[in-house]
């Protein structure tokens, strides 16, 4: 009975859909994000930024004669749940998958997309990766339909090293403390690789469990005994906060070179301890030459773009750029054409142009290096502290060579 009812509903749905397609086929975007579970805070921000970007595309007339549709799928922070939601998105006819929080989930989705595209020629999907920074996504796992709209460890670390060296904040001894998984190892490798360029010696490095450690005091004792000037860390969430708090409590005088210090709540929780530390990221409000973008974002969403929202909005802007070069005249949407257009698109972000490197689909993008100061232009977390831009490293300077492991199979033209 249920099966019959389901079938009937499908038929009915197909009927109405058939009626609709006589006008045009809408472009469907699916956000598969951590909307519950421990990474909700980050997942929510990605979803908000994507919605803002889609609203802008629709305000400019949508695509293919229809507004672009966007659906949220909750992956609950897990790869298996994400795979489930991917299948649902396929069933819903989604053309573009977007995800950001967690490289592990990005790894699952890029494989799912690759397999789907192999098995369903003509019904391809694109995966827009907004936050999975693991090197393997543009290395071993690189594929034509995956695009990464964020930085990677070498881009962030090289930017940090250059900017900090220029402002004489780097010192000659560096320590690397990172989480024991792909991202942390990438950061550690990048810190080692940049040593000669930055003129520092790596006096110690340690990898630790991811977000399981409650007490960082022993790690601080270990860092202290190595006597570094600068501590590089790719830690995020609790691992960063606890590390910084423990360092502040012990009165250890080091400069932190971080990558996720702008995660909401960090500055407020770290308090005075945060002052003077550095961060390299994709975007910061203070780095924009005019207030145009932050103000527009605030007008639409009620708050200035924070953490991942800025660069996620740029990714959607780039998609808009690519779509503007295409015209399917209201007919079937060819996703491969969209991917090819994305490859050629250049998005003029407030910080500089962002383009896609064809060999591995890593975006060539500017990296912002900032420092935590008092009385910042855009205060963070309701404190009087915030980020002050030290330098914006242009994309062509921040980019790193294509990894040898990337063997991309391009679609037959």
């Amino acid at each position, binding site marked *: 009975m249920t099966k019959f009812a389901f079938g009937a509903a499908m038929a009915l749905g197909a009927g109405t859909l058939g009626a609709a397609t006589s006008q045009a086929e809408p472009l469907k975007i699916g956000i598969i994000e951590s909307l*519950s579970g*421990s990474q*909700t*805070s980050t997942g*929510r921000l990605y979803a908000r930024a994507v919605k803002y970007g889609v609203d802008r595309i629709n305000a400019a007339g949508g695509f293919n004669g229809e507004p672009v549709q966007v659906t949220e799928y909750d992956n609950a922070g897990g790869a298996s749940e994400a795979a489930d939601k991917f299948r649902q998105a396929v069933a819903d006819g989604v053309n573009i998958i977007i995800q950001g929080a967690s490289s592990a989930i990005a790894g699952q989705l890029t494989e799912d997309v690759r397999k789907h595209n192999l098995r369903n020629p003509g019904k391809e999907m694109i995966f827009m990766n907004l936050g999975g920074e693991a090197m393997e996504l543009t290395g071993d796992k690189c594929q034509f339909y995956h695009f990464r709209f964020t930085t990677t460890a070498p881009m962030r670390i090289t930017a940090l090293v250059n900017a900090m060296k220029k402002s004489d904040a780097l010192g000659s001894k560096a320590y690397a403390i990172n989480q*024991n998984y792909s991202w942390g190892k990438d950061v550690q490798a990048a810190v080692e690789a940049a040593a000669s360029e930055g003129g520092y010696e790596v006096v110690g490095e*340690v*990898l*630790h*469990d991811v*977000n*399981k*450690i*409650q*007490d960082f*005091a*022993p*790690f601080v*004792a*270990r860092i*202290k*005994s190595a006597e570094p000037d600068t501590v590089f860390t790719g830690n995020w969430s*609790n691992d960063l*906060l*606890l590390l910084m*708090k423990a360092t502040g*409590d*012990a*009165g*250890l005088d080091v400069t932190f070179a971080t990558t996720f210090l702008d995660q*909401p*709540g*960090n500055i*407020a*929780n770290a*308090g005075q301890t945060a002052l003077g530390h550095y961060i390299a990221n994709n975007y910061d409000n203070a780095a924009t030459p005019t207030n145009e973008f932050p103000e527009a974002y605030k007008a639409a969403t009620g708050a200035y773009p924070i953490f991942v929202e800025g660069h996620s909005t740029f990714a959607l802007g780039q998609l808009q750029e690519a779509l503007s070069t295409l015209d399917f005249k209201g007919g079937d949407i060819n996703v491969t054409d969209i991917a090819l257009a994305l490859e050629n698109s250049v998005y003029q972000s407030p910080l500089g142009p962002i383009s896609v490197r064809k060999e591995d689909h890593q975006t060539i993008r500017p990296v912002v290096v900032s420092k935590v100061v008092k009385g910042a232009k855009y205060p963070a*977390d*309701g*404190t009087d502290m915030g980020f002050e831009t030290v330098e914006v490293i242009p994309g062509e300077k921040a980019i790193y060579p294509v990894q040898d492991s990337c063997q991309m199979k391009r679609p037959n033209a």
Partner: protein
Amino acid sequence: MEFAIISTLNGVTYGLLLFMVSAGLTLIFGMMGVLNFAHASFYMLGAYVAYAVSSIFGFWTGILVAPIVVGLVGMAVERFLLPRVHAHGHAHELLLTFGLALIIEELIKLFFGDFPVNYQMPEALRFSAFEIFGTGYPFYRMFIGAVAVIMFTVLWLLLTRTRTGIVVRAAERLPQMAEALGHNIPIVFMFVFGTGAALAGLAGAVAGAFYPTNPNMGIELGVIVFVVVVVGGLGSLKGSLVASLLIGLFSSFAVGLDWSIAGMFDVVGLGDWARSVGGLLTLELSSVSATIPFALMLIVLLVRPAGLMGERN
């Protein structure tokens, strides 16, 4: 020497923090036999209540009010929710508290948002207790340790030296007999559960100002607290204290030690070979320090299933 002293200090204070959080759980399990999965949520609730209260009435008021509020919530849970499933056995009680934990977490997110809130210790407490090998030792860590020690002493004296303690223990051993002697057992249980929850609330209020107060703090500490209780011997207060200190010391020392299996091979001259093999052989102890409590639990369960000081077998 410096390493040993600092690691011991860090290990003991961290161990005492673990005890502070697990004391209530131990009490509830030891006296009532209920494995309260929502215990870590009570801990989180304590931190958030203290944050909300302290932002208006000051830090110390927050510390006082949080245990009371969380204790009342605990009593309500024992009074209105647990009796309904009690007849179905322990598994159902566990499932109920598990569900409760999920609900509390989502409620916290609803009211306080997804991000960590800005719950800080007062500036007056933010100073170094003493200098050791050129590093200041934060006073607040000592404060956490002191609260845990007081908690243990008071609980232990209460249970073993007072009339209330006798009644509570009687209610646990022989409920019918205690009831026949005129004691109101349901009320006793309600207060025990309330006290256990209040202890978690106090721990949250104290520790939340030191660690970030965020919607994940319950899950993060919850697992390790269960390990403490299992290693200590389910329900044994002294066992929990010993287990907390053990786990604190083990994790603290592990961080500073670059031991790996390859290092062991050095003794027989195969170190270089082991390093060339890599993988598990070169895995450093410090990179798996958070796993040590679980390894300890495994060993204790294998060797002494009742836990270090447990009576039940």
